[in-house]
């Protein structure tokens, strides 16, 4: 018995030496740089107080302005009230490109992006909704439909009728159409009011929730930033440009097709993402503590270059690509899809930096998924 144990022991000592010999590695620097005692307080305070909160507030104001404009429009349809509504629509849709980055907490629960911006709108559904008057935007499955929010307004204001005169006439005669406008804005208003109220309650605890675990605020912010960036990549660029469809393009699938605001919104969205990364205030434009500073602090490297530089350059490159797209996005997809595809490729590259490299080098645990199992 004792002998056998000795034999086993000897065997393992042999195995031990066998393994040790095999794991020589030429890494000479500590690969981990993230634990240099960075205090997240300034970063979280800046992102919360100078970016998220003012963005929500501005968006809330914009939706209220849009609501007033639509009330006016429905009460007194005219070229003037249409113009006022369109102007409020453009402002709100542009601010949405900022808040679209913050699908966190209540905004996440309320499926912020899906309920405000499922595009392209399903015009058949919208038409039949108006005709029957049967629809419920507050219903649970409503976020799966493509008949409300900004895309529906985009269609109704810019595409539904042949001319502004026709829209005036339709609004004067069709009570169902009036109600549809009112229902869309009521749904938007309800949701953003709840989101704003909850955010103001959660704000302080959100700043206090420091750390690197999957539930920490920094993890949540990075996750939300990534989700929106991927949303842009896939829905704002990829789907219309036919990236996933063997070259079959779908120019009508761009965001804000009818108003042709697509490229402007895309630029606003890119700027919003870059501003969060850099920590640039939404209202005051001041560059304070951002993810760039954090990556700089831990001196994260990608190959031989600073990861922060890589990401900043990539934002610049993507912006340049969008500038290369002349006129409208839908037209570019039809006439010069290569430019759009190049922009897509640059977005995809940035997703790698933001979603894989940044969390890894910052040691931030991100749960994109609900792990349906154990790990080991």
């Amino acid at each position, binding site marked *: 018995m004792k002998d056998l144990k000795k034999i086993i022991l000897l065997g393992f000592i042999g195995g031990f030496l066998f393994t040790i010999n095999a794991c020589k590695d030429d890494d000479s620097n500590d690969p981990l740089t993230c634990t240099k005692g960075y205090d997240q307080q300034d970063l979280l305070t800046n992102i919360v107080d100078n970016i998220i909160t003012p963005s929500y507030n501005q968006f809330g104001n914009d939706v209220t302005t849009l609501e007033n404009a639509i009330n006016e429009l429905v009460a007194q349809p005219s070229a003037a009230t249409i113009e006022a509504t369109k102007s409020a629509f453009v402002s709100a849709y542009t601010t949405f490109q900022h808040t679209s980055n913050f699908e966190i907490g209540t905004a996440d629960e309320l499926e912020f992006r899906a309920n405000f911006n499922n595009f392209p709108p399903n015009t058949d559904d919208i038409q039949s909704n108006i005709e029957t008057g049967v629809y419920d935007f507050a219903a649970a499955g409503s976020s799966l439909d493509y008949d409300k929010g900004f895309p529906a307004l985009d269609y109704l204001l810019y595409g539904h009728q042949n001319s502004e005169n026709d829209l005036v006439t339709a609004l004067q005669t069709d009570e169902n159409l009036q109600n549809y406008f009112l229902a869309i804005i009521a749904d938007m208003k309800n949701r953003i009011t709840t989101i704003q109220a909850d955010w103001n309650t959660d704000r302080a605890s959100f700043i206090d929730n420091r750390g690197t675990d999957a539930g920490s605020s920094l993890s949540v912010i990075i996750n939300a930033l990534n989700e929106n960036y991927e949303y842009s990549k896939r829905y704002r660029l990829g789907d219309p440009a036919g990236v996933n469809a063997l070259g079959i393009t779908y120019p009508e699938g761009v965001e804000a097709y009818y108003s042709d605001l697509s490229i402007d919104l895309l630029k606003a969205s890119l700027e919003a993402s870059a501003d969060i990364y850099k920590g640039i205030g939404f209202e005051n434009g001041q560059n304070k503590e951002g993810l760039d500073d954090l990556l700089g602090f831990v001196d994260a490297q990608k190959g031989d270059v600073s990861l922060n530089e890589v990401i900043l350059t990539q934002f610049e490159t993507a912006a340049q690509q969008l500038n290369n797209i002349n006129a409208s996005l839908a037209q570019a997809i039809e006439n010069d899809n290569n430019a759009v595809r190049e922009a897509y490729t640059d977005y995809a590259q940035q997703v790698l930096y933001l979603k894989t490299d940044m969390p890894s080098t910052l040691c931030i645990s991100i749960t994109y998924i609900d792990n349906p199992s*154990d790990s080991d």
Partner: protein
Amino acid sequence: MSFQQAISNYLNVTKGIYPLVTFRILFGLLMAFGGIRAWSNGWIEKLYLEPDFFFKFYGFHWIPDPTETQIYVVFSLIIISALCIAFGLFYRIAIFIFFCCFTYKELIDATNYLNHYYLVIVLAFLLIFLPAHRNFSLDVRWRGIAPITKIPAYYIDVIIAQLTIVYTCAGLAKLNTDWMVYGLPLRIWLPEHADLPLLGYFFKQDWCGYVFSWGGAIYDLTIAYFLMFRKTRPFAYAMVIVFHFLTYLLFNIGLFPLIMVFNTLIFFPSETHYKFFYSRFQKEIVSTQNYVGSKILIPFFAIFLLVQIILPFRHHLYSGNLYWTEEGYRFGWRVMLVEKSGTATFSITDPKTGNQAEIINSKYLTPYQEKQMAIQPDFILQFAHFLAEEYRLYHGIDDPIVTVNAHVALNSRASQQFIDPTIDLSKEKDSFVQKKWILPFR
């Protein structure tokens, strides 16, 4: 004493049966609990019914995908047979059914591979051949099977040896630069638990990662041997409890801590088991029959253990960084060893038209599958083959070119390109041969 003599003497040594009985009872109860836990957490639905595509282990592509009824039957059988094992009722049939069902469910989708599920399979396999129901069981009480008190020592030692292999290999696997020199990935993982009361303060400290790395390696390398000797055993078992309680606190590893805390009781002698537990329920039964083991089991166990010793080291047949390529990684007791994340974006090209389609992985895979696939080359290859078939069948492309842009980040580093992006994966075959299209770790 010559080696042959030592062996033959050893084969005649007997041990009391109670460690094996305890092992059987706790194993059965834990497995029944595990089955119920998976069921009530909705994991059956998520892991076996939601996915449209399943990844397989090499050589097991023939394993059929279950229907909804079938998978629930399989889990029902697992739970029922596990209870039968615990109570020792129709034990031989029960353990065989359990082994088959559990193994089948693990072969359905290889992305679910966990070392402790593999351990369950290995232990269940050994239990098929062991008379664990021959005392303190319903088979004895109701079915009139004669109880026994002494069995050949190798019936118990085979499990002890298996557990020793598990711990030792887990320890050897930790002897790599990242783990020992840089304390990775524990220095990433521990600070995530800074919120825990008392311990959280330590988890925040950078040195804690090094201490835990070294502690873990030393524990794994030595614990089985400390459990073998009477003098060190009580202290060693206390360490087992502390160590696995810590892993329970830190990681989402489910039943694994309990499995090990229960299993290692088999290191205690039969008298201890009897004194602490069975003496309350029954008088020491004096066997009416002298249990003689089946001689064929001796070489069988020997070969089995030899395979178990060799299998974890097969990675030496491949060049390259094991933790990067994962060639020869599985079935090696490499537990919670690396922090990896990755992305894999596939592209299909129609060679005739040059048209391209980028794949949205989530159309075919669950998030969990996608995450696992992105860091394991054989899964990347399987998915590429699946995509080639999809595009052949549903998009009429005769010979689709499948490439992947895959990047993986290992242990807090920035990511590196993982797979050669120029290789048409649809032309590559899976095999045990080294995969040339995995780019080296720099």
